[in-house]
């Protein structure tokens, strides 16, 4: 697997990878802070748990959005300069996957604005 292909796969799956990282962080941090009673730390009027979730969500959203834009741009380029069928396929899949990931990542941020931190 060449480096170009590796990069391509990362671009195609990037949104879901961003979700996986976001998920690991928000679940891990919530469990640790609540489990150890460290959740009372407040910053800017928000609890540490909420802040972590919001930051992780925004970062993951930004990452997925950037990947989506890159995929879209590459797709447009390929329309002008036909690439191999595999390349086109990976790119178009990337557009779909990164687009769907945006929604999924956003959903994982919603609890932060509804629920209390550790109840």
């Amino acid at each position, binding site marked *: 697997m060449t480096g170009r292909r590796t990069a391509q796969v990362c671009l195609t799956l990037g949104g879901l990878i961003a979700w996986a990282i976001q998920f690991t962080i928000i679940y891990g941090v919530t469990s640790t802070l609540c489990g150890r009673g460290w959740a009372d730390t407040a910053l800017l009027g928000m609890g540490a748990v909420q802040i972590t979730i919001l930051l992780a969500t925004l970062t993951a959203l930004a990452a997925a959005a950037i990947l989506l834009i890159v995929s879209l741009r590459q797709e447009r380029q390929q329309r002008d300069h036909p690439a191999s069928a595999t390349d086109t396929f990976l790119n178009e899949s990337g557009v*779909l996957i990164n687009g769907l990931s945006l*929604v999924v990542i956003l959903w994982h941020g919603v609890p932060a604005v509804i629920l209390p931190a550790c109840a």
Partner: protein
Amino acid sequence: MNAPELPKSFERQEAELPNPLPRPEGEFEALKKAWKAPRGLSFITAVNNTYVGLWYVGTAFLFFILAGILALIMRVQLAAPESDFVSHDLYNQLFTMHGTVMMFLFAVPAVEAASVYLLPNMQAARDLPFPRLSAYAFWAYFVGGLVFFGTIFVGLSPDGGWFMYPPLTSTKYSPAENADWWLLGIGFIEISAIAGAIEIIVGVMKTRAVGMSLDKLPVYSWAMLVFAVMIVIGFPAIILGTLLLEMERAFDWPFFIAERGGDPLLWQHLFWFFGHPEVYIIFLPATGMVSMIVPAMAQTPLVGYRLVVLALIATGFLSFGLWVHHMFATGLPKMSLSFFSAASTAVAVPSGIQVFAWIATIASGRMRLTTPSLFVIGFLFIFTLGGLTGVMVAMAPFDWQAHDSYFVVAHLHYVLIGGMVFPLFAAIYYWVPVASKRALSERLGRWVFGLMFLGVNVTFLPMHITGLIGMPRRVYTYPVGMGWDALNLVSTIGAFMIAAGVAVFLFDMARNFRFASEDNAGNVWNAGTLEWLPNGNYATRSIPSVVSRDPLWDQPNLPKDVEDGRYYLPGTATGGREALVTSPFDARPQYILQIPGPGWQPVLAAVFTAAFFLLLTVKFVFTSIICGVLAVGCVIWWLWETDPGPVRPPADIGGGIVIPVYVTGPMNHSWWAMIVLMVVSGMVFTCLIFSYLFLWLVNPGAWPPRGVELPQWIWPSLSTVLYVGSAILIARASWLLKGDDRRSPRSVPILIGAAMLLLAGASAIDLRAQWQAGLSPSAHAYGAAVYAILSLQIFFVLTTLIMGLYTIARWLAGKLDSVRRTTFDNSMLFWYYTVGQGLAGLLMIHGFPRLTGGA
């Protein structure tokens, strides 16, 4: 993407075909000879995917029937309140075995078995890349599974539920061997599943028809690829879980005992991190089958191929974010639960995509209402309902009511029977013509479908209500007057309707299924994919080159040209069994893989592996260890015949393509398998580190517990030096073993030997340091966790040492040089992994408690 009503014809010039006619005399005979199946008693040494695949499917189906019978007994017991048809003791074994057998001995093996049969055919590969590994996986499962099931006849079956929650399953509350049967029996069936998954990943990525690039891969192959990756990620969690629980039971290491710092919830995390993806692990292959059947039945290409592939991949990812939804009632913070609610709702989207893709495909073609079609329509009906109740239980507050009630029994049977059993029946009716001289009966098939479809709904639809009006799961009886009587009676009647449907199916199989390796019933459905090409033991006569996803529709002369030997590799280049290895993305020919034929080694290795685990269960430790050694011996005997080296110069496979018959490095198929194995090992280790951190989290102020001293810095530092040193020696040996001149320097075995000493020393020093510091594995969960990390590391070191010895033996036998070095490469990769894991373990054991300062 509007599909044409009829397959468009694809014009192709005669001259473009890679191999000219007539084919040389004796070419076809040589091919047939190489792939001849063994006869007589040695028949069981066959490794052909078509043979092993069928035995595998047949055995899985046997377990379906057996576990189904257990369910019927339970339904009789529950038909009326306060019934005493079976005792509580037997009932608890029945429901445990029903779940365990259906999940571990039927569902996963069945989909894996089907792919052993179908995958190579669908990709026009001659066989899977490691045929003996599939044979091994099958025999281990066959022997182990039957013995495991046999425990029900002697009252020794596990009775703690298929989820085996401690402390109920720990020594204190389950002192008998019943629980050990589950832990050891299931433990090695998981290993068999992982062996299959490695095979499938390499098979999908490396052995395809020429030109079958990723965008032309059959959806089924995609599904199996995602399936196998999910096994590789998910199964290690349960393997580790069973290891920890068995260590607790055998040696009293308190991972799950609350009084000594353990936590029962750790098991639930490990179990469900495997257990939820497991549901999708058996569902995805089934959707892959449906995505093959629907286009054939509607005679039109699948609508939304890319969206379906997206759905498969997204399901694979998201399904790992669901596990806590089985733990909604465990009292975790609501915030934590909500993430799993979100992921559980999200995973509904990909399922929706697939359902609408099939509807769109049906609408764009002309659906013939054959038996496979009926099962697909039944699947869509049942699965949609199960999926919708799935979204309901994804909402934690609703689940607080529904959890562990009959509502969940209804939900899970809708998704599993709808999502897996119906597609499997569709698949059997659809693909039997490939494997049999005759197709199954359409008339009987309608009866099978009708009885099963009605039966499933009659059985499980009422259970939604039964659950919401308060009936909990896993009860051997229930009181009179709760309003559950009539509903339960209806469910029992439905269960017998399903059984009647299965009985008609068995009759149909007995009447019409006649095994065929050459003269099968043929392309009776006018399907478009490669498994419908004319077949023999050697699979297809030549390896086709494809230009679309439905080659048989788009290249009308394909079957004849393939059969005439006009495509690639129409004979055998080395005189033995071969497969064509292609590049993972674009499927360009890379090399000819020499694959092993029939042999007793995998059968014997499997029997001894099974014996090792089963005898260990009944505490015949000595005999068990002998069997373990024999199993390792058989594996080494089997491996000895592999890594043949470049037995001949590069060969012409047609069309001017000349490729080698032996390669090493990242292009090699076993390199890929080794990488996958390292991922599996890495996941086991990751789960162990997670367990360590989890136990830290539940033990505030006791990490390490009072009175426990950490070993001095000097010891882990020394271990680190030795680990790194052994890796450097191996790297040096690899460097010396380069060049086209087939050199084989004497320093190589010496370096390997020295590296073995360093490796053994590194782990021994760490073990000794903990022991000297007075750490006890059974006093507190801290010690248990530390010794678990050490034990895992020592297991890997021992394995690496065996590989080192084996590599030295290859050198001594003159079977290792700078060209023929696959054996060395595999050992090297594993060596690096072991060193890496050792270093990470040291960092964790010695670094983490210092970092947190005992907090």
